């Protein structure tokens, strides 16, 4: 068992780290405080290939493996969790299903521009009434000739306000329950497809979280991914990969909290010595470091299984569940290490804590992750 990164993986990590340190760290606080989509840095990331890391080169991507993607995503997320989720959604939730289920024509039209960084994508599954109960799709797709007409509302869509393309889930027949769900690609500007609102969030404030309204939105039947009724299978397969991305994002956030806490506690002097001299602080840092390493290893495990083409549902759930809870604990400990300054918006500890919380919720809440793992154990 070789735990060393390959040359390519190491270089991906180095490039991501350099870019993150020089281009993202200096703007991360402003992105958070203004709630601004970081257009310029996202474009640069796209030009370097970070928006389609594991997409084959023939379709504009870097043609790399999932482990390379995970190490790069951790570095980007360490600098800014908003950049991390924008990158993760683009890669895992948009490019992922197109690579796996798209036809040649669909890949050429919808995958290549996004993988190459020229445009952005989003994944529209959640609805006001369909969060954890994602199969309870109310958005309908009515076949009319060589089109589908979409009606419904999608909720909490990351990249929703900026995406040029969306993968939208809708049902052709509610009576069929999950077997009626389809996945279709919808391009921005399609009449009847609109961003209804953009949410104000507790964290990852640089990424947009939009409500999308579809009102008799006519989409060519050629935009159907896979077959009618395959949508649920596509969603689940996509989320397996998406969870690996979020696990990497969470590891990055946790690491940011640890690094900031380590640095601060060496400088802050109380009772005549740096606070890091106190075992109470050392124990917090030790726990953070240990949990981050464990979370990273779970993430690598899921990534490796995916790269080998093996089933990885349980492992990606474990990685996402554990890493998100580690990020939350690290975020809270980080604020505690900073003491009073941890509570102040001028210091970074609060941002890591706020950013961490959503990782326990999106792409499957911690409760759903536990259900899936238990189901796997019991089957």
């Amino acid at each position, binding site marked *: 068992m070789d735990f060393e990164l390959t*040359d390519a993986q190491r270089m991906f990590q180095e490039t991501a780290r350099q870019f993150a340190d020089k281009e993202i760290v200096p703007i991360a606080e402003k992105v958070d405080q203004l709630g601004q989509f970081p257009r310029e840095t996202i474009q640069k990331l796209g030009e370097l290939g970070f928006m389609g890391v594991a997409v084959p080169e023939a379709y504009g991507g870097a043609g790399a493996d999932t482990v390379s993607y995970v190490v790069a995503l951790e570095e980007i997320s360490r600098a800014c969790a908003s950049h991390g989720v924008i990158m993760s959604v683009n890669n895992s939730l948009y490019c992922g299903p197109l690579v796996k289920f798209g036809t040649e024509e669909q890949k050429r039209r919808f995958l290549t521009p996004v993988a190459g960084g020229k445009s952005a994508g989003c994944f529209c599954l959640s609805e006001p009434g369909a969060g954890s109960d994602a199969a309870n799709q109310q958005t309908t797709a009515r076949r009319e000739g060589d089109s589908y007409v979409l009606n419904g509302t999608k909720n909490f869509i990351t990249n929703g306000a900026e995406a040029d393309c969306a993968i939208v889930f809708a049902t052709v027949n509610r009576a069929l329950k999950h077997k009626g769900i389809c996945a279709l690609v919808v391009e921005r500007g399609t009449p009847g497809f609109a961003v209804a609102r953009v949410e104000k969030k507790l964290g990852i404030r640089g990424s947009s979280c939009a409500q999308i309204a579809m009102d008799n939105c006519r989409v060519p039947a050629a935009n159907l991914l896979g077959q009618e009724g395959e949508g649920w299978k596509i969603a689940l397969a996509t989320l397996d990969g998406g969870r690996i991305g979020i696990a990497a994002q969470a590891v990055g956030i946790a690491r940011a909290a640890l690094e900031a806490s380590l640095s601060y506690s060496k400088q802050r002097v109380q009772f005549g010595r740096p606070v890091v001299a106190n075992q109470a602080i050392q124990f917090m840092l030790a726990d953070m470091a240990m949990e981050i390493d464990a979370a990273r290893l779970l993430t690598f495990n899921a990534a490796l299984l995916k790269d080998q083409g093996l089933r990885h549902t349980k492992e990606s759930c474990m990685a996402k569940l554990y890493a998100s809870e580690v990020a939350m604990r690290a975020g809270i400990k980080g604020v505690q290490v900073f003491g009073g300054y941890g509570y102040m918006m001028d210091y970074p500890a609060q941002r890591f804590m706020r950013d961490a919380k959503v990782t326990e919720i999106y792409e499957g809440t911690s409760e759903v992750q536990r259900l899936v793992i238990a189901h796997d154990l019991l089957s």
Partner: protein
Amino acid sequence: MNIIVCIKQIIDPEIPTEQFKLDPTTQRQIRGGLSLVISVYDQNALEVALQLREKQGGKITALCLGDSGATGAVKSALGMGVDNGVLVSDPALLALDSFGVAHVLAMAIRKIGVPDLILTGCVSGDTGNKVVGPLIAEELSLPCVTFVTRVEVKDGKAVMRRIVEDGYELVEGPLPAVVSILSDDSNVPRYSKLKDIMVAAKKQVPIWKAADLDLDGAKVGAGAARLELRDVSIPRRESRCEMLDGDTPEGRAEKLALRLRELKLI
């Protein structure tokens, strides 16, 4: 035009200072586990080479003298887009002074084939030495221009912007030549594109030993060192805070300016 860029792998200057340690017996930097990078100005040199290739065509080779781990530096250079890379690595060549280093690099350049242009960083990112470029030129009997930020090639000649104390001068010189590169807005090292990294990762980096080069034992053997390292230490950093008073911002600013001048900082 063909270019060779000489690069060195150093400890990342951005690491927290407390992680940087010296071995008390050998007085060498302890590298284990630390982040290693291509020396900063060598990265600028790679960028200059890449820009020249975009205009003139040709091939770029990254040449590195280092320990076996320095393959990573050569691969990073390949990831930036250079065509080939060579590592010279041999335990007998690890503790050379600048003269020894320049001799080894010059002989490796002869083995590759003296190109149209040889670039180096103008200052070593860890030791602060500035002489390897000129010494390579001396070994190869080539002209050398140092502290250059920009290189253009016109009618087979190099036109270089060379930084001097109060500005810059334009220097024209014949090729082949050795040019040492200083950083500038025009040569900010590019980030590696991920697909270039994938290509680079598959490339083999040949590793040459001392025996593969026609080295002069008098220049690299035992007792060949012309410089003796007597002492190396990590400077103690202290911070002191001096408060300047004044009734108005203008008054305090004037006091600050005068104090900075007293300290010879401006």
